[in-house]
């Protein structure tokens, strides 16, 4: 009789926590790529040249 409420509760929990976990892991991977890209960008290289000047 109460099964739909119980299954819905666990489904909501898994979907929300699973979604947050996936978003966080994908966000970390994207940030790593962005960070690696920015170290190679001309702006950064100019900035590092300026630091040496």
């Amino acid at each position: 009789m109460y099964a739909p409420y119980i299954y819905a509760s666990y489904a909501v929990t898994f979907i929300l926590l699973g979604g947050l976990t996936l978003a966080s892991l994908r966000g970390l991977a994207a940030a790593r790529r962005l960070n690696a890209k920015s170290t190679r960008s001309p702006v950064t290289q100019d900035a590092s040249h300026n630091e040496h000047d």
Partner: protein
Amino acid sequence: MLKTVENISAYYANPQRFMRLAQALQAPVWGLALLVLGVGLYMVANVPDDYQQGSTVRIMFVHVPAAWMALFAYSFIFFASVTALIFRHPLGHVAGRSAAPIGAVFTLIALITGSLWGQPMWGTWWVWDARLTSVLVLFFVYLGYIALWQAIEDHGQAARAAAILAIVGSINVPIVKFSVDWWNTLHQPASVSRFARPALHPDFLYPLLVMGVGFMLLFFALTLTRMQMEILRQRARVRQNGGAA
């Protein structure tokens, strides 16, 4: 003891050192969180029906830990904000910003599962009683904190404004916690307390505590992951701006 905490805090104020620690801890914390949650779910699958609530008592094992974590995550953001504003710890704002979506999700889970538990037990999805309303306010404070970070373009200003909001909004945490004692509410008072014997039978108490530990480990695993993400994003932004933050 306080000196040791201060020394550790000062040592990891260097984001580079923190990144090394976070990378080393990430896999073990994730692994432990999944293991404890797996054990917790196994225990939940084997709990007997409650003599009053029947099988709906199983909703408690996600609803109550989510509600605990909603308050814990906000307390974490409060201390991170105080650390950032008063002690100017460079990781304070990073920690606060990283924990906010996690706290918001736990609060949303507590609200939805509470509603799904309320319908069969109370005969209604929602009542405007003190506990439910104060948790809804907590959810809106989380959303406001997240929105403030997004709304202000200057990173330093956004960080200060969000930290002030987090500190002001912390007034709601004791209201959520003690609302069931201060007002007559449909929501029941706390069943698990540090100061009194738990009102729960061990058949329900132990799975609940295991799920609580699992949710806590999941919070730390997610926070570690998101803090690394924030630090890397900030680093890339600083580089893109040619060294200016």
